[in-house]
């Protein structure tokens, strides 16, 4: 198989040419905004808001909110999704997914503030709110991904003597992974965006420079902070897309 590797590389690049678009847009977009800002006269308020070490700290908080909430979602939504896909759970499957849809319909802005009154202000509450907001895509995709596995494969696995657990781990989950990863990708992107609301309950993130500069009427600073959030969302979506392609390329 080693001999085939060099010959395969160009084909791989050709097939994935479309993946180049996002990084180009991100780099060019950020460069335009930053160059434009660098050539403008900034007052002391704007300079403080656009101080690299301050932005870097907010960026770090934003990443932490996004990653922590997505990891929690993956742990709970995947487990619940796997449980719901078992035949024994067929009766409560529809009801649970409908409840998930109901939760999804609640506006994240409202949820995050109501939760702050219930649980107090801070990062933990913000993460819980993000988890609620992005739970459903992962849950739905896990259930759908597992249920779309050809029943003949499950019958073959059981007929050969795989236990229910072995069938789940060796057949059902590997075949559902592309759909599950697609759900996780949606959750990640949702969380990057929703994490900008964390600032309203004192949990920081890139929402903080946006909302404070908006309040102080500093449009230039708002533009920069917003561009960073947008770029971050695009990059995370792109990375998740690459991961999705890697798993489905191997399995599809």
């Amino acid at each position, binding site marked *: 198989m080693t001999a085939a590797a060099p010959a395969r590389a160009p084909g791989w690049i050709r097939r994935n040419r479309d993946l180049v678009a996002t990084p180009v847009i991100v780099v060019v977009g950020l460069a335009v905004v930053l160059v434009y800002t660098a050539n403008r006269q900034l007052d002391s308020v704007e300079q403080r808001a656009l101080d690299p070490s301050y932005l870097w700290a907010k960026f770090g908080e934003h990443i932490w909110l996004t990653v922590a909430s997505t990891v929690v979602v993956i742990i709970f939504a995947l487990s619940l999704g796997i449980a719901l896909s078992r035949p024994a759970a067929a009766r409560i499957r529809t009801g649970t997914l409908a409840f998930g849809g109901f939760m999804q319909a609640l506006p994240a802005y409202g949820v995050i503030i109501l939760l702050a009154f219930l649980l107090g202000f801070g990062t933990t509450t913000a993460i819980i709110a993000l988890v609620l907001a992005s739970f459903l895509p992962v849950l739905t995709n896990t259930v759908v991904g597992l249920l779309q596995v*050809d029943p003949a494969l499950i019958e*073959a*696995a*059981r*007929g*050969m003597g*795989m236990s229910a657990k072995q069938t789940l781990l060796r057949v059902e989950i*590997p*075949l559902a992974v592309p759909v599950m990863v697609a759900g996780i990708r949606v959750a990640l992107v949702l969380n990057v965006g929703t994490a900008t609301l964390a600032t309203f309950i004192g949990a920081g993130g890139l929402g903080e420079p946006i909302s404070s500069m908006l309040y102080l009427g500093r449009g230039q600073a708002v533009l920069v902070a917003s561009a960073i959030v947008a770029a971050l969302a695009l990059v995370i979506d792109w990375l998740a897309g690459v991961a999705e392609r890697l798993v489905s390329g191997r399995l599809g």
Partner: protein
Amino acid sequence: MSDAGQSPMIALEGVSKTYPKQSKPAVAELNLQVPEGAIVTLIGPSGCGKTTILKMMNRLIEPTTGRILLAGEDVTDVNADQLRRRIGYVIQQVGLFPHLTIADNIAVVPKMLGWDKRRVASRVDELLHLVGMEPDDFRDRYPRQLSGGQQQRVGVARGLAADPPVMLMDEPFGAIDPITRERLQDEFLEVQRQVAKTICFVTHDLTEAVKLGDRIAVFAARGRLAQYDTPSEVLAHPADAFVAEFVGSGAAVRRLSLLQISQLELAQIVISGAGAAPKDQPVLSVDGAGRPSAWHHVPGSERPPALVTVPLSGTVYDAVDVMLDGRAPVVVVVDDDGRPRGALRWDALVADLRPNGQLR
């Protein structure tokens, strides 16, 4: 049953299955014994419970009552997963795992049984050879790169992987085109000659049941075993009106495929130029190698008919087929070297075919 002395490999004793929320059983009080090394084909109309019966043998469906014995051991209550690793299982949809290579698909059960790597690898190659697929070409491919017929060959190889004494096959060739299906059936019989497994084979195709089965189990509704006998007995002596209707009007023709030409007494042929021939015997011209070239004279016909031949290894079905095809009242039976061994005459064939399918 004629196998009274021999202990059966699979035995169902008073097995019933009633599905939840149904008042009538799908299978009621079934007794069935499958002798060791035999292929038993299970056949019957849709919904007769033949697949349910097959799946109760490896307890994919748990029987409501009754006992299942495997080689004399009561397996009704043993661990079902471990039981199934001892029984090969092949289904119509094949069910090859798309994310595993052909080799990994075949290796699933051996790996579960804890075989070491080298033994698994050599077993995979051995099985691919057995089903007529070159291991070097196919080992590392994925199922989607194979044709339907190739996939089912791998399915059979996977069922045989851990060398189980028993194979259960649920319409394995049902979704395959007729030409490939016939070839797979021939290959399957060839494989069975080498491995001599005890096989239960569900089919809805009577031709397939007759061709593959050492015995046929004909099921009526609710898993009632209407007849359990050799193919020729089922075709010649249906046990009741249901079997007679199921076997249908084609039974006489189907029986012809069970009659080997080599078992028949052939009519004498005189080779032309080999002395004076009696007027009532056909005379055949041969070429330099001794192979038939044309009829010189056939009694009862003004002009000699077209020359048609059938190999000695064929069946009466083949002989009738070439006679109808060539519009010839007589067919020359030739051996492996193409030399004439005798003749089969249409009128004699029709006159001497008895209802039990035997000649003379």
